[in-house]
């Protein structure tokens, strides 16, 4: 059901030319993904998706849209010129579907992702970290170095945007 809504929203985004509606639909798409993640019991990821995708990203997209045009320009190229793009997208989609047959079924306890380090985390978190939320224990402690990298990425991105758009205040040295 949620997947059906998700696909309908994606088609809407692809067909609409009015960018305000597209931004709103993209926010809806994020919210639906968050619901989907929540239905898979991934509360932490759903929380992040709702906050980033549906919240902040929508606002920033609106800001970016207000700086440019409200309407997407209609396509000028003929159908024939668009055929290669369709072929590439179609074959890539076919490849993904073909690869899907090799993926372990959803919730398989013996999938490679579940038997690598996950059992160690599940068994040892209560003893080593003593924190009820397993996700926090993994993110902040076991995988702390990765999270440090993520924070540095966010910091760098913020500096980049501020430098590009001129939101950076420099301390005045001398007159």
């Amino acid at each position, binding site marked *: 059901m949620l997947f059906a809504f998700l696909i309908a929203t994606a088609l809407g985004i692809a067909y609409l030319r009015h960018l305000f509606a597209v931004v709103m639909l993209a926010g809806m798409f994020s919210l639906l993904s968050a619901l989907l993640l929540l239905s898979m019991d991934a509360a932490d990821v759903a929380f992040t998706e709702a906050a980033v995708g549906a919240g902040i990203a929508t606002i920033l997209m609106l800001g970016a849209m207000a700086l440019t045009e409200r309407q997407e320009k209609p396509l000028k190229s003929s159908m024939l010129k668009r055929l290669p793009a369709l072929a590439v997208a179609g074959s890539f989609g076919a490849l993904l579907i073909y690869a899907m047959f090799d993926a372990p079924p959803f919730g398989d306890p013996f999938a490679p992702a579940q038997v690598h380090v996950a059992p160690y985390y599940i068994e040892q978190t209560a003893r080593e970290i003593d*924190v009820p939320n397993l996700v*926090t224990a993994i993110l902040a402690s076991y995988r702390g170095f990765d999270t440090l990298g993520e924070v540095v990425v966010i910091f760098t991105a*913020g500096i980049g945007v501020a430098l590009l758009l001129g*939101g950076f205040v420099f301390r005045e040295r001398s007159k």
Partner: protein
Amino acid sequence: MQHHLVLRVIAKLLFAPILLFAFYVQFHGDFGPGGGFQAGLIFASAFVLHGLLFDVSSARQFLPDRLLQVGAAVGVLLYAGTGLASVLLGGNFLDYDHLAEAPTSGQHLGIILVEAGVGITVACVVVMVFRAFADHLPCLREQDW
């Protein structure tokens, strides 16, 4: 946006609860879903909501740009500093076992410090990016939408 009275009143009412909820998510991340990243976003969203409905300059008096820049750096430094502190106390980088007497309380302390660093950086960066966009926008008229 001068005449959106309802929206402005609701935004003012919601401002403090959003900040409070951000702190709840920040410090309750050990027990339930959430953590520094989500808390930072929620904290920033209060200021984004304020910036959408009011003048950005009024929020600047309370939270100046300079503070945001320093805060974004302080968060990263707090995170890396926790890692360095655990090195100085005899462990590996970001190995919080040595931060306190017992390994588990050291882990608790380390996680709280690290999450605080994440929260501070994310909140500051998001408000900074929002303001960078908002500064370029002329005040939007109704028919523009």
